[in-house]
């Protein structure tokens, strides 16, 4: 009986899965920004990165979503994790072990749920612009040419127009390695 109810809930929720993923995104950022202890902040960023990757994937950007996972989570957050393990040695505090942290997290959750309930009740949210319509689920397609396949994510990797940009970023990354070695060497 409860399994049937769970299945009905899942079937109804699947059309709104992008919305649920973006809510998980916001909640994990509230968890990062209420600053428990750096390791748990990194954990919140990992969950947020996963939810953001899900949002990008469900809009059809497969290459950019995988870039979020591989380069952002796998590259930069691993560096953050090792530096956190090296630079801070103490007793880490969780989200529930300190009243300030827990209070900030609950405040963020309350604000987010207020905005979500207001947006779900009325059809629109008027903050500065007028975001209306929960039901614009049609991504307007230009009826793309069926000859060569993916439009957007295929040409994200086309480096025939951006050769100078590639050269500049490669050179600046090389210079940044030299700069960081000089900074870490100190006096």
């Amino acid at each position: 009986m409860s399994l049937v109810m769970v299945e009905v809930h899942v079937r109804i929720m699947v059309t709104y899965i992008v919305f649920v993923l973006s809510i998980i995104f916001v909640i994990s950022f509230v968890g990062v920004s209420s600053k428990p202890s750096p390791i748990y902040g990194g954990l919140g960023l990992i969950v947020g990165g996963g939810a953001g990757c899900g949002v990008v994937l469900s809009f059809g950007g497969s290459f950019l979503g995988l870039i979020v996972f591989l380069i952002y989570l796998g590259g930069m957050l691993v560096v953050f994790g090792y530096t956190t393990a090296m630079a801070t040695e103490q007793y880490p505090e969780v989200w529930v072990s300190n009243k300030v942290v827990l209070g900030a997290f609950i405040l963020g959750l309350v604000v987010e749920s207020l905005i979500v309930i207001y947006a779900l009740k009325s059809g629109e949210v008027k903050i500065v612009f007028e975001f209306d319509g929960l039901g614009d689920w049609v991504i307007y397609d230009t009826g793309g040419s069926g000859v060569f396949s993916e439009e957007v994510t295929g040409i994200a990797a086309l480096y025939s127009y951006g050769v100078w940009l590639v050269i500049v970023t490669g050179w600046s990354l090389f210079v940044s390695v030299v700069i960081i070695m000089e900074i870490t060497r100190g006096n």
Partner: protein
Amino acid sequence: VPLVYINIIIAFTVSLIGLLIYRSHLISSLLCLEGIILSLFIIATLIILNTHSTLASIMPIVLLVFTAFKAALGLSLLVIVSNIYGTDYVQNLNLLQC
């Protein structure tokens, strides 16, 4: 869909507020900075995917490249502070001598 845009702009604002308020660690502000960059990347990707502006897809990738540079620089400064003082509490960054 505009409602997803609202949620990601809320995430950006939450991370911005978390960057401006210090607690005791320096590295948690760097983590909030990473959160800002991630939310900017996702909202740029969503708008580019929705409006099918193909050539602007280079922009989120290049944004991530320069984010890596900035994160490495911030972390190296944190390593220096931690080498001098032992931990990275922000109350150590106080040159006042009186």
